[in-house]
């Protein structure tokens, strides 16, 4: 299976473990990722806050870059994914804007291939059996709270591939690699996102509550599918620092026995290695 790949700005910096584990897990599952050449920032949460035109033009450039290959584009970051989806919808629905962008960026919108989130692709283009087959070290006994965050599954008319209030795709992947998903109440509660830089108290409050909810439900750790969610829950959970926060792809890579996992885990704020050693999952 072949896809275009949009890593997003944080995949090389603050969520480098997400980028590296995404690439490693996809390779292991024979999901070929072809990185878009010279991709640029999608505008994150700031472009739409200040400028309507820029908010669709910035991700529009990346959607334009994906046209030539005509493949679906795998996007690991939910905010990048949402912005790309909005731009792709604008290309499909707003003919004037499409023409303007085509002439500005000298390309033709073919509409072949769509922006897709990594979790959607791994859950729906592969069957769980393919994931199970790759497991060499099942994560037996590891209780995982799957945390989807806010915009990964919302708004449902834009995303539409999992339930917006009670998503299960990540839980099923965690089960497929041998972990034990826990039922909990904060799967889709927002961590405060970019407020971590502008009003950090809010993010401390929200993230602490989410982590406490996971621990209360009996989880040993949290799995995340977003660079901002992971860093907020990992660094902004209050002083007790109760639970490690993984990227779901790191846990998959661990179960697949892939190289590099130990190095990625060393980049977390709440060190997850003691927990994994205690469970015999890491040497």
């Amino acid at each position, binding site marked *: 299976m072949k896809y275009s790949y949009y890593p997003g*700005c*944080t995949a*090389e*910096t*603050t*969520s*480098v473990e997400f980028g590296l584990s995404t690439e490693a897990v996809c390779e292991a599952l024979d999901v070929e990722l072809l990185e878009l050449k*010279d*991709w*640029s*920032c999608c*505008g*994150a*949460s*700031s*472009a*739409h*806050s*200040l*400028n*309507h*035109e*820029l*908010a669709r*033009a*910035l991700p*529009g*450039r990346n959607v334009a870059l994906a046209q030539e290959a005509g493949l679906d584009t795998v996007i690991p970051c939910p905010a990048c994914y949402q912005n790309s989806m909005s731009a792709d919808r604008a290309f499909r629905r707003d003919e004037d804007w499409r023409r*303007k962008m085509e002439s*500005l*960026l000298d390309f033709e919108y073919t509409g072949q291939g769509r922006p897709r989130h990594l979790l959607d692709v791994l859950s729906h283009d592969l069957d769980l059996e393919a994931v199970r087959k790759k497991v060499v070290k099942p994560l037996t006994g590891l209780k995982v709270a799957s945390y989807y965050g*806010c*915009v990964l599954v*919302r*708004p*449902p008319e834009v995303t539409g591939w999992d339930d*917006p*209030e009670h998503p299960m795709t990540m839980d099923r992947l965690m089960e497929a690699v041998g972990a034990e998903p826990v039922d909990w109440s904060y799967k*889709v*509660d*927002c961590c*405060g*996102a*970019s*407020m971590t*830089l*502008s*009003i*950090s*108290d*809010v993010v*401390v409050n*929200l993230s602490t509550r989410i982590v406490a909810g996971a621990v209360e439900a009996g989880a040993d750790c949290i799995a995340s599918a977003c660079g901002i969610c992971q860093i907020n829950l990992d*660094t902004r959970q209050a002083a007790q620092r109760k639970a490690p926060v993984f990227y779901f792809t790191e846990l998959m890579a661990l179960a697949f026995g892939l190289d590099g996992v130990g190095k990625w885990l*060393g*980049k977390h*704020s709440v060190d997850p290695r003691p927990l994994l050693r205690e469970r015999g999952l890491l040497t």
Partner: protein
Amino acid sequence: MTISVSKTDLAFREAVRERSGEDIHACFYCQKCTIGCPTAYVMDYQPAQLLRLIQLGQKEKVLGSSAIWMCVSCETCGTRCPNHIRLSPVMDALRHMAVEGGYAPQPSVYALHQSFLDSIKLWGRVHELSLIMEHKVRCLLAQPPLFFQGLVSDMLMGGDLILKGKIAFLPDRVKGLAEIKKLYAESQPEVER
């Protein structure tokens, strides 16, 4: 909470409806949006109150509120609204109208958005280190005490991230920067300020 209402500006109500594309009139004040909103507790007017104020054409109160800058666009309200009103595009439209109309924004949030867009314009991708520094300078210029808010925890966190090799010292500049600049020039001028 009692909110006193001043003169109704119906043109404002229509402008919000048009720019957001959301049917604001459909709100019957069930308050599901307020109940689910993660940041309602730091808002001066909560989401349902804000919608009612828009219905009542209270331009000054709405565009001058801090609430419009506290929304993190998590889409909880829009997902749960029985009348299918998404507040995320409404909040975006209100922020644009507030900046255009010269209303004072929440300084720290506004400074972050400006720094973010500056970073993309300069490099084509976000460079966190210079973005964070620009944000701090903008806060200092807008409201000096803001500079110190969260400074210690930010520095501890930043230091930790640098030690773990998660903050790049040098920016990663895209080759098609001319295209990015073209997109900026073609969009509305307010970000250029």
